[in-house]
């Protein structure tokens, strides 16, 4: 498993190739690789996005991402998982997040990658602040993301 929080631009494809080469090179049982790559759009709610700032809670973010991937490894019987998430200042087209999983069969890798992304969006302490021509705003919870954590 590999979890990385990066504060500078990265090449997701290079990261995936390196992880596969270093951690899974001798695993000839792999039949499926599943990858999700999230990138910054240049629009949101009909507004042109100039930049995105991502904040995180050091240590807690890494702790929850590790837990999320560990749960997916056990539940979906994948061989391994990789999550890399950007923080700091991002521009349109920049990669925000990459999730990659490897398994014997496609269902396991598809399911694991989706579940890791959905859990990340509802549990991992990360927040987006968007800048457009009107100024900046903290983004609200994605309607598709289930928030099960306790609130006051």
């Amino acid at each position: 498993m590999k979890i990385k929080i990066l504060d500078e631009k990265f090449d997701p494809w290079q990261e995936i190739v390196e992880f596969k080469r270093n951690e899974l090179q001798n695993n000839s049982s792999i039949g499926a690789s599943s990858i999700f790559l999230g990138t910054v759009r240049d629009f949101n709610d009909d507004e042109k996005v100039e930049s995105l700032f991502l904040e995180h809670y050091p240590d807690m973010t890494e702790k929850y991402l590790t837990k999320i991937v560990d749960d997916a490894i056990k539940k979906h019987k994948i061989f391994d998982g990789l999550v890399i998430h950007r923080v700091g200042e991002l521009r349109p087209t920049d990669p925000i997040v990459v999730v990659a999983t490897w398994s014997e069969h496609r269902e396991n890798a598809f399911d694991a990658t989706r579940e890791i992304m959905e859990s990340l969006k509802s549990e991992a302490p990360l927040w987006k602040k968007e800048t457009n021509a009107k100024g900046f705003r903290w983004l609200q919870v994605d309607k598709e993301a289930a928030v099960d954590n306790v609130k006051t």
Partner: protein
Amino acid sequence: MNICVRYFASIKDDMGMGTVNIQVDDDITAGNLFDQLTSEIQYNGTVLIAVNHEYVDCSYKLKDGDEVAYFPPVTGG
């Protein structure tokens, strides 16, 4: 007892600070402490609470040396 309080995202902006070390009464809950700390700003959004990097609910009783964090629902990914 001594508590380290951390704020993130919009709550950090509203509070004008990210981290503060404070002394509080014994047996105070994480929810009551938030209400006390934010009485000036009248925060009325949803807040999530973590103590020592684990989510807790508002009735969690803080202990000496705890790090308590208050933040809005997460929006990563």
